[in-house]
């Protein structure tokens, strides 16, 4: 089998000002994942590496750069699945970590469960050696602006849902 990887950087009404960053970051992510495959890494290693690349990049709605909830906080979720055994690992309502996908992978590999949320997910991550980061370090200016726009106009996030020509979306 010739290894292959595909990535996406999110769907929605992406403004023109974000297109170049999205394309650059998406290509960087696919290269990160493909490099893992070229070195003989597993599909699981490759998809984690690709997603980690985008979680570090403020051009994407994941990790650093995630959109904000109504309290102005970053509250993230991630999942990973191994098609060999249909094993899954996922986290939700998780804060203060840069790489939720790596915590999800630990849920897959080091837990009898499939999905951990909130305080339990945080406790699990700390037990597995993940370190928290200051919550404000995950917040980008774009995310602040998007929340302000939502609060002012009631428009759901441009990074997630289109607001033009969408037949009443949001």
């Amino acid at each position, binding site marked *: *089998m010739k290894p292959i990887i*595909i990535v996406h950087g999110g*769907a929605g009404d992406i403004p023109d000002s974000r297109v170049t960053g999205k394309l650059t970051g*998406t290509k960087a992510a696919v290269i990160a994942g493909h490099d893992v495959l070229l070195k003989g890494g597993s599909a699981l290693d490759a998809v984690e590496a690709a997603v980690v690349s985008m979680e570090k990049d403020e051009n994407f*709605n994941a990790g650093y750069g995630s959109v904000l909830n109504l309290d102005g906080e970053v509250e*993230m979720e991630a999942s990973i699945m191994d098609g060999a055994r249909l094993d899954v690992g996922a986290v939700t309502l998780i804060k203060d970590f840069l790489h939720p996908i790596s915590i999800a992978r630990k849920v897959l590999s080091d837990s009898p469960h499939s*999905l951990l949320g909130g305080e339990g997910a945080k406790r699990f991550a700390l037990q597995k050696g993940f370190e928290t980061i200051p919550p404000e370090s995950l917040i980008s200016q774009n995310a602040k602006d998007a929340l302000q726009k939502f609060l002012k106009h009631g428009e759901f996030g441009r990074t997630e849902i289109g607001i033009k020509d969408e037949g009443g979306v949001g």
Partner: protein
Amino acid sequence: TVGAVAVDANGHVAVATSTGGMSGKAVGRIGDTPQIGSGTYADDNIAGVSTTGHGESILKYCLAHSIVKLIESGVDANTATKKSVLGMTKRLNNTAGAITLSKNGDVGVYFSSNRMSWAYVRDGKIYYGIEHDQVLEDAYP
């Protein structure tokens, strides 16, 4: 939302998806991403899918799993991806996108939203895009 699907040299399929959700969401809101079958699905015997878009619609439609089941029934990866995304959009009037790899490495990309960035590597080239019907290519560095 971001996601990745890979098939490795041993033919194993894996999928990962990660997100901050939607701007202005309620505290405690959970979307499709962590719900297996909605935001993410992988089966070595069939395909892998990662989705993005309107989370509540994606999870109601079990979008990732619906694409995988179409491929299992004999539909090719690209057609299955397009058919399921459009099916969800028609049924629930919200938009989404998805990336798919069949177990043989066949690619599927489709989105009903205005834009979705995507990229894959094949035969020494990176293929990528963000607009509908756009396929750009660069040499792999």
